[in-house]
């Protein structure tokens, strides 16, 4: 293992993490809901739950307009995407189906579940970080 000091951004990562934590704290403290993006989006896609869906839609709109709000004050950071179109499509299907089957993703299990010390969420987080690391190893180093 070699740390990539050229790309490691500890301060902005930690500050951004605190903002994410505050957002999750706000949602549980005021709305009594878990800030799990896959659960919120997947729930909103069950169109029958109309009353439950109001808060979900408001949360999703806030999330979607965030780059626009950021762009009012600062230039958006440049991003690098190396995956081709078919890879992106396959990845989206796996992330969508897998996060619903596993009842959560990086936000619901990784942040909220870990923060509330849930064994279930910690097991899920270790599992997806491991399978993500194995996938990147197979793609990059074999």
């Amino acid at each position: 293992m070699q740390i990539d000091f050229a790309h490691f951004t500890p301060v902005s990562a930690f500050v951004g993490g605190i903002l994410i934590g505050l957002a999750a704290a706000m949602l549980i403290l005021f709305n009594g809901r878990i800030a799990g993006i896959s659960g919120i989006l997947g729930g909103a896609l069950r169109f029958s739950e109309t009353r439950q869906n109001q808060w979900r839609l408001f949360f999703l709109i806030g999330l979607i307009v965030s780059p626009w709000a950021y762009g009012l004050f600062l230039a958006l950071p440049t991003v690098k995407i190396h995956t081709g179109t078919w890879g992106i499509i396959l990845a989206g299907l796996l992330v969508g189906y897998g996060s619903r089957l596993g009842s959560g993703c990086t936000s619901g299990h990784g942040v909220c579940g870990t923060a509330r010390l849930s064994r279930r969420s910690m097991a899920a987080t270790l599992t997806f970080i491991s399978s993500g690391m194995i996938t990147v190893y197979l793609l990059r180093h074999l």
Partner: protein
Amino acid sequence: MTLLLSFISGLMFGLGLIVSGMTNPAKVIGFLDVTGQWDPSLGLVMAGAVLVGFFAFRHVKQTHKTLLGEVAHLPTGQHIDRPLLAGAALFGIGWGLAGYCPGPALASLLAGEIQPVIFTLSMVAGMLLFNRTH
């Protein structure tokens, strides 16, 4: 009132993802690439978020109420079962493949690239497939 707070929470969540660099798939893959040039940033994002979240969840776990006196919906499942682990494993494969998970994908929809749009449409299809079968 709670709807406005829900909107602000989503907005703040997205800003946190952008500030932390997590809307850049190369940075996410850099964290997962432990045997190559490893970028530990994502670990610090989680540490910051979990640190703040810990105190909020500890409070709600004790009171079972929101600060506005409403019922708080905390997950009740305790059991580490097969769907949890299988779903997490599939999710991780997709995450490693493209470097996107649901939050950063949605927080990149209006950023100008086409890939997050394709990813999100495909992710929605995966979720609808799950909803149809469960």
